[in-house]
């Protein structure tokens, strides 16, 4: 016969036991840690953007759209270039007409809805271009929110979307703090930059890296200490976007300023 006191005790014990996460019981395995450090064949794809070199030509956007079969005239793109014009009164003006697919064809800032803003040459305190693409985060929030397991991270760090399994719910598009995901107008599934996975796995560079004539875009393997990109990331003053979100983005930027969002 169970007493009321006994029942309460056992219930609390059970609830307490269930509250302990499974991860807390996992002991770390020294062998596993050693393997991570010593395995030189391992790959972790990372990207390096030098904003001081970008001139806003948009060849990267054009090449990406054709290479990855993103409908050319639809206003969606896997990568884009933003123009930042900061005037002497402290205001920041940002635009990216068609994602800069055709570059920047006017000195006016595109405000959307057919409106343009003229900025006089002498009012500019600084102006520059910032290419954007998927950050292939170490903690990708877009993957966590997928209810069906259609998006995932590969061993080499690239986040992919399974087109045959995606149900098009759009949670991942909402979940990405960088706004890099969109609906593919043809396949009707979530779409994103995947560092040209079909090229990098063949030893080629991404289409945007090849198209960039100024060396503003580079791709590398963070697990290879001799990789020129890894050397820059380890020794120079690189920054990432929206670090405060805890996503651990793996696209590193040279020459970021506080105005860049």
């Amino acid at each position: 016969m169970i007493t009321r006191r006994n029942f309460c005790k056992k219930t609390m014990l059970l609830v307490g036991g269930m509250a302990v996460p499974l991860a807390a019981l996992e002991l770390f395995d020294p062998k596993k840690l050693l393997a991570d450090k010593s395995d030189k064949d391992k790959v972790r794809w990372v990207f390096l953007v030098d904003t001081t070199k970008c001139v806003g030509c948009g060849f990267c956007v054009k090449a990406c759209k054709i290479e990855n079969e993103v409908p050319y005239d639809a206003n969606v793109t896997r990568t884009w270039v933003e123009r930042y014009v900061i005037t002497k009164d402290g205001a920041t003006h940002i635009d990216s007409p068609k994602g800069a697919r055709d570059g920047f064809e006017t000195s006016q800032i595109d405000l959307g809805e057919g409106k343009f803003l003229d900025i006089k040459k002498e009012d500019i305190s600084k102006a520059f271009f910032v290419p954007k693409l998927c950050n292939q985060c170490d903690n990708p929030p877009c993957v966590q929110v997928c209810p069906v397991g259609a998006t995932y991270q590969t061993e080499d760090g690239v986040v992919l979307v399974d087109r045959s399994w995606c149900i098009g719910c759009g949670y991942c598009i909402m979940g990405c703090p960088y706004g890099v995901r969109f609906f593919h107008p043809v396949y009707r599934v979530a779409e994103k930059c995947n560092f040209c996975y079909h090229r990098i796995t063949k030893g080629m560079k991404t289409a945007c890296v090849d198209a960039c004539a100024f060396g503003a875009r580079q791709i590398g393997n963070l697990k290879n200490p001799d990789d020129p990109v890894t050397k820059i990331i380890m020794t120079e003053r690189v920054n990432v976007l929206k670090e405060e979100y805890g996503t651990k983005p793996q696209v590193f930027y040279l020459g970021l300023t506080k105005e860049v969002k």
Partner: protein
Amino acid sequence: MKNHVWRPLYVALLVVAAILVLRKVLVPADFGVGKRGYMYGWHRAGNEADWKAVKVKYRSAEYCKECHRDKYDDIKASPHANIDCENCHGPALGHPADPPTLTIDRNRELCARCHFYLPYKTSGRGSIRGINPATHHPEAECVMCHYPHNPKLEGRK
């Protein structure tokens, strides 16, 4: 226990069994936890191969060099050395088999991507030799006067 207690239980068990069978049929066999663990790695393993199989369209200058060595050397010795052939000539795809010819983009807008002067001294754009396309010979194609493979040789075509 009485029959009226067991009967709904049988129904519930049947529903659970049906869901399990349906799951077995619908979920592909290669679904599983990948190298990145359950939270980030749960996926259909075959999809990685699907992405690797995407066709390469931009074959890069190294591919063009195999046949067009003269043009390759020409541009590599010019200020345009870093511009990839396919930026202007379009993606090579299966050229020369398919397509046999590539469409060259001779639009003024193509050159203006870099050479439309923008007064952005704090970016690389401000130091590129630039013009205003609206006033600089708006009626002509750039290549009528400028040789794109080596812009230093003006007037050669």
